[in-house]
């Protein structure tokens, strides 16, 4: 599904440069649910951004669904992002002047689907996250948990192969976090491949595999017994 070899990334800081990723090797199979952990500055977000084609690696190999991702033009990156990837952000990143349904349907707009189809699919995914009745509400009329569920519905709308989540529960309270995690687990149960960055131990334990980064290298990569979020809800 996803294969990374000797990935390097550094950011220029003034005259010198900061070496953030120092040769990462990672391979993720279809249907996995992986937590990437590490303290801040360990490079976990950078890794996720490169996987999400939001950022480019300096060196190394990245193969997604047997497609080598390199030397992407902006246009090609846009098409790949739309086709392969769904994003869930810590701060939701909904467009605040669009209602829930329009937000969910936006990736479908960039896929070139007809409006009728977009509304149909958008409503289907909103129903899946339990917010069909909120379709016409603007983001600022929704609670944090509801916003994140709209964002998840949006990530799912384009039917991506890989779901990327950057601290998906970072802005939520414990109870809501568990609800969101329960939902993400159910998506994984259905076969979606999920990669998430988190620094919370209990959230990481709800995944099936934990990759720990420190100073730009993988310290530990282990499979864990998944803790079901449903027991807390």
């Amino acid at each position, binding site marked *: 599904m996803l294969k990374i070899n000797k990935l390097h990334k550094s950011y220029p800081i003034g005259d010198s440069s900061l070496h953030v990723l120092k040769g990462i090797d990672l391979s993720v199979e279809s249907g996995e649910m992986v937590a990437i952990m590490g303290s801040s500055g360990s490079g976990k977000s950078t890794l996720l951004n490169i996987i999400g084609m*939001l950022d480019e690696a300096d060196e190394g190999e990245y193969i997604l669904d047997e497609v080598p991702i390199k030397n992407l033009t*902006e246009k090609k990156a846009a098409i790949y*992002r739309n086709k392969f990837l769904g994003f869930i952000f810590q701060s939701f*990143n909904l467009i605040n002047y669009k209602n829930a349904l329009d937000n969910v349907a936006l990736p479908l707009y960039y896929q070139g689907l007809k*409006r009728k189809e977009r509304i149909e699919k958008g409503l289907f995914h909103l129903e899946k996250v339990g917010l069909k009745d909120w379709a016409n509400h603007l983001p600022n009329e929704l609670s944090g948990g509801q916003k994140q569920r709209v964002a998840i519905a949006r990530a799912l709308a*384009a039917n991506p192969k890989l779901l990327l989540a950057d601290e998906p529960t970072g802005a939520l309270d414990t109870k809501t976090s568990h609800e969101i995690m329960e939902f993400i687990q159910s998506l994984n149960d259905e076969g979606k491949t999920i990669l998430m960055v988190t620094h919370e131990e209990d959230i990481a334990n709800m995944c099936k595999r934990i990759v720990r980064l420190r100073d730009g290298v993988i310290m530990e990569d282990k499979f864990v017994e998944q803790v079901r979020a449903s027991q807390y809800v």
Partner: protein
Amino acid sequence: MFDRDLWREIFQSINMNRTRSLLSGFTVAFAILLFAVLFGIANGLGNTFAEAFVDDASNSIFVMSGRTTKAHKGMQAGRRIQFKNEDYDYLKNEFGDKVQYITARIYKNVNASFRNEKNTYNVRACHPDHQYLENTLMAEGRFINQLDLDNKTKVIVIGRLVEEDLFQKTTALGKYVNLNDIQYKVVGVFEDEGGDNEERMIYMPITTAQQVYGSNDYIDQINLTYNPNMNHDQALAFGRTITNKLKNRFSVASNDQRAIRIRNMAEANKGVETMTSGLGILILVIGFGTLIAGIVGISNIMIFIVKERTKEIGIRKALGASPKSIVSLILIESVIITTIAGYLGLLAGTGILNLVAPSLETYFIKDPSVSTSLVVGATITLIIAGTIAGYLPAKKASRIKPIVALRDD
């Protein structure tokens, strides 16, 4: 590019971000409004100015005679120079197409009466060309023509105020007016923008006046207009040529300033031309100034809009928007707002001009108006400027890595 979905996206964005849309729209509308109003007022000033000089043809030369002040060729000073018909013919034939219109004039003062109404008026006996020299506008009937001259008919053309004085509310055309006990038929009534005095004037054929009032061929003055194709310097030179030739013809010393006098409007026109071109420059400066202010305003707003939308751009890119679609989204939105706002500014500007125009006449601003095509041109300039000003930041924003745009700050 122009599919319905894109329009839907744009109108949603305009509609849901009203403050932003209104602000940018207001900038454009206000710039166009100012442009129209200032331009209109400047034009109004120009109109007033032009009107102050329209009475007589601006290319006129008046030729007058007086007494000599210097002895010359054995003749004493103080000799009176009298123009005659032959001098008129000389001027008319000597200079060919350098002369556009020419007329002689005889001045008389008459007591006029019609039934019980009496008054004194100035009479100008003249040639048919006089109509064009004085910008005489016929309200009714006709002006003096060549046939009148040939037959020395007793006809007159009277001013609008003469008709009012003598005929009260009835029409003068075709009636007979008594001038110093001779009956003249009124063949025309004229108007003149040169003021009340000009409209209290009576015109008659010069040959008639010569026969009735003196049985001679004397004339008091010769007026002509020079070919309007002549430039200023040529016109001044032409005036000097006429003076010199006439001085020669009447054996007047070349340094005698009184015997032959000419008044060349070209001399006065120089000042008028300078004023008019000064006003034109003022109008241009005002127009460019407001336009540049508008361009700066819309440019600022476009940069601000792109900045404000950076995060939205990041989200859209993460969801699969191509850079091209981002740029067109921002630009088409700005073009729509600018066009609508520009149109409203145009309507408001011309509306205000029409509203205040009558009350501005006291301030020497007449018919303040601005051509629609000019304002439309200004609006299009603003649209293009806004597009260029928006394109650069939009292009830059569309190239931002989504992760930079999405960074929480």
